[in-house]
């Protein structure tokens, strides 16, 4: 029991379970999953389905944050990738031509990876602070996306393209498989090769890492590139889901949600240790919260207040200091004050 409680994922899991239980109490049907037209249909599936693009972005973001960076441009990359894919398809004679769709996807992904590389270049080679370097693309990127779409929403009619974001494979949405695949890829890359160690060490202490011979430039470049790639994939899923590309709104505020997910998952914004599974849990928490808000009919004007309170609760409950205060005030043995404890908190 003690071991479980000490596990870094214990509290995120608890929060997620609490949210789900709340839903179950509110609506006993919440967990019901039906099979409809050969696919599973239900709230839980929706959470996975709508969570998958965010999960993709957050996975990429985790690596960037682990290197002590941040990527604010993901939302814009989502929009650009969506725009490129839809624009390419819309220019085709036969929008449903598999070759065309594949070309469109490859183009979009290549562009996204390139944009990620550009961010990495600014950060590592030019030495611009990550937040500013990626802010540039965040601003410019929306413009580029709109330039591609001429400010319009490009609608495509391409069942083949639609499969990616709205299709079903073995009862589950295709996008869920894509997210799972990328997650597995990231986990494999970071845990089976030495990349994870390098990323963590660069994020923890860049100087020491350089002196230990770790190619910190390459490592960080890779992180940004991967993040761009993930955002691009998310853009394809999002646009394919609604069969259209909206340069202005696609992926709007994604950067905040993605960073939030990463932080809830236990990765520190100061770089170093990162937790991909934690990030995934963070995404599920955020998406479950969103779904909860929609399905319980919280009035839109208080949505944000609810979100704020939940976010606060999530991070307070993860704080050992708060739990101690809470326990103390519940038991109310004797009010004693907080102790200064240096940087001794261990993450198991």
């Amino acid at each position, binding site marked *: 029991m003690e071991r479980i409680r000490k596990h870094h994922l214990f509290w995120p899991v608890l929060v997620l379970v609490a949210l789900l239980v709340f839903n179950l109490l509110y609506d006993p049907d919440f967990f019901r999953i039906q099979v409809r037209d050969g696919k599973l249909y239900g709230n839980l599936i929706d959470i996975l389905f709508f969570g998958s693009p965010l999960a993709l972005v957050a996975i990429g973001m985790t690596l960037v944050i682990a290197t002590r960076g941040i990527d*604010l441009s993901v939302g814009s990359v989502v929009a650009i990738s969506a725009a490129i894919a839809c624009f390419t398809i819309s220019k085709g004679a036969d929008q449903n031509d598999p070759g065309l769709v594949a070309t469109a996807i490859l183009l979009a992904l290549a562009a996204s990876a390139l944009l990620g590389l550009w961010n990495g270049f*600014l950060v590592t080679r*030019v*030495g*611009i*602070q*990550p*937040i*500013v370097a990626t*802010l*540039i*693309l*965040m*601003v*410019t*990127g*929306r*413009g*580029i*996306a*709109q*330039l591609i779409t001429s*400010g319009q929403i490009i609608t495509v009619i391409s069942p083949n393209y639609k499969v990616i974001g709205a299709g079903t494979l073995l009862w589950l949405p295709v996008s869920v498989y894509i997210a799972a695949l990328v997650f597995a890829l990231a986990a494999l890359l970071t845990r089976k090769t030495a990349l994870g160690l390098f990323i963590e060490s660069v994020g923890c202490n860049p100087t020491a890492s350089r002196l230990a011979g770790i190619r910190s430039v390459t490592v960080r470049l890779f992180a940004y590139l991967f993040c761009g790639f993930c955002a691009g994939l998310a853009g394809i899923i999002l646009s394919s889901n609604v069969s259209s590309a909206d*340069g202005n709104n696609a992926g709007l505020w994604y950067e*905040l949600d993605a*960073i*939030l997910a990463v*932080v*809830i998952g236990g990765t*520190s*914004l100061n770089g170093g240790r990162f937790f991909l599974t934690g990030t995934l849990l963070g995404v599920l928490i955020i998406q479950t919260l969103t779904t909860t808000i929609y399905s319980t009919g919280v009035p*839109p*004007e*208080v*949505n*944000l*207040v*609810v*979100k*704020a*309170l939940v*976010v*606060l609760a999530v*991070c*307070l409950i*993860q*704080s*050992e*200091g*708060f739990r101690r*205060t809470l326990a103390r005030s519940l038991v109310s043995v004797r009010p004693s004050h*907080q102790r*200064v404890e*240096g*940087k001794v*908190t261990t993450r198991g």
Partner: protein
Amino acid sequence: MARFAIKKQHVPIIASTALLILIFAAGSLRYTGFFSLQVLLNLLIDNAFLLIVAVGMTFVILSGGIDLSVGSVIALTTMLSAALIEQAGWPPAVVIPLVLALGTSMGAGMGAIIHYYRIQPFIVTLAGMFLARGLCFVISINAITIKDPFYVTMAQTRVPIPGGNFISISVIIALAVLAAAIWLAHFTRFGRCVYAIGGNEYSALLMGLPVGRTKVLIYAFSGFCSALAGVVFTFYMLSGYGLHALGLELDTIAAVVIGGTLLTGGVGYVFGTFLGVMLQGIIQTIISFEGTLSSWWTKIVIGVLLLLFILLQRLLSSRGEVREA
């Protein structure tokens, strides 16, 4: 040793100033009506509130933290002011101190959570951002216009400057805040403690500095600045609205960082922030003088100008460093 020897730490500031002058000169050559004092003064008038929040944010970033709640606190301040004045009929003399106190205590609350419960500033202030913005809509979804004579006077009074130009009262407030903040950062114990915390929080603690108190104060100060910026913003807009100052936190952070403050904390100058704000303003001005850009080109050009500026700044700075060495 010479009296005019440039210190390495000052190189970015000097580079930014030089660039700002350069851009202004370029703008003057390119656009009619650009080369006038009033254009510069408008820069101040239009960015007074940004300057005020950015000053508060500078302290936060110097300490190695971040405050995402500033834009929402501004919105909440405008909303609260408007609701209290127009709907509840309270006098401005009560409302303004009240909103300032509220902003300050909200900041202090976030600071306390950040410090005592050791939660990352990003997430705490993000929650603060959602909360403040959400509270706006709880007060009212609609915009509330302010017709109170005091606010109208504050909004429309033009303080004449020799040469037929003018500034607004908000500019005076903003410049006063700037001056006070420079003093605070460089000539008080509090300010130095902020730098120390940014340099290394654990060391600061071991050096016997009041880390906890200072951190709470830093966020309280940022909250105060946001609320004050909210008041100035209310003068500027004469309305309370839940969507005011949307996304301002990023503009603010950008201004601070462009001004040479390191996001990792401990390095930077309040005056740099002033330059950062002016730079963002001048980019906006250039865009509106250009007058032929479509919406997307506007974004692209803003981004490209930003990039150019930062590249030049780095180039100049590294030159300076080489010469210094």
